């Protein structure tokens, strides 16, 4: 179970809608199983060079290379590292934990893609060394634009498991 204040759910959906058709992304703070705050982070994918794109691999890299820089952010996101670091510092200063990441899928369901899983595992490989708790991965789907959905997952050993969301007033 993951508890999220309704204002933060509204905020994440608004963020996804504001950036559509580009994917939005952000960080969530909190403690244990309760989200306290959300930080919007810039999706810098369109600004990445051809060489930078190789931080993605496999089919996603091929797909990205086929698209124009502007179109790339429709199917992927890359968080701005500086903003992510600033958010992490703010989270720490408030005595909270980095509890999760969120991003939007503009045209597909709220399920982790293969790229989401691969990069979640990349994060997992260094997370313990940075003393960060296991994160929740949240996805906002605008596939049905009049009815956005949001789902949370734990991703362990490349297997996503949905975690029910409990909306707090």
């Amino acid at each position, binding site marked *: 179970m993951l508890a999220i204040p309704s204002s933060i759910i509204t905020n994440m959906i608004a963020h996804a809608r504001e950036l559509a058709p580009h*994917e939005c*992304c952000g960080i969530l703070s909190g403690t244990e199983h309760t989200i306290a705050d959300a930080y919007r982070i810039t999706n*810098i*994918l369109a*600004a*990445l060079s051809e*060489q*930078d794109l*190789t*931080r*993605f*691999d496999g089919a*996603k890299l091929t797909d990205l290379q086929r698209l124009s820089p502007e179109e790339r952010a*429709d*199917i*992927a*996101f*890359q*968080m*701005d*590292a*500086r903003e*992510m*670091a600033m958010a*992490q*510092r703010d989270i720490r200063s408030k005595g909270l934990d980095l509890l999760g*990441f969120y*991003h939007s*899928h*503009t*045209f*597909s369901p709220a399920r*982790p*893609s293969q*790229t*989401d899983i691969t*990069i*979640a595992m*990349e*994060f997992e*490989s*260094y997370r313990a*060394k*940075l*003393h960060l708790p296991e994160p929740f991965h949240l996805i906002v789907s605008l596939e049905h634009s009049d009815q956005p959905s949001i789902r949370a997952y734990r991703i362990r050993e490349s297997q996503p498991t949905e975690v029910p969301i409990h909306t707090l007033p």
Partner: protein
Amino acid sequence: MIKVRIPTPLRPMTEGKSEVEIAGNTVSEIIDNLGSAHPGIKERVYDEKGEVRRFINIYVNEEDIRFLTGKDTPLKDGDEVSIIPAIAGGA
């Protein structure tokens, strides 16, 4: 020697190794020496202006170098440097 953690996308340049030992007194020296030992890696960490690329964070132990003294951050034996790409993903 300083232990340097290499992220997955850069491991083809370190023969697949996730950690390498590099000599250096500052983060800047470590990245220079890493680039000499493993050609191509420095260009993947720095942009054309010599700044750390916008999707990469460098940590000394558990602290981001932006909150220390950047690339001039001094290092001592036993410190660990981690090169970590910020979270990404996609539909």
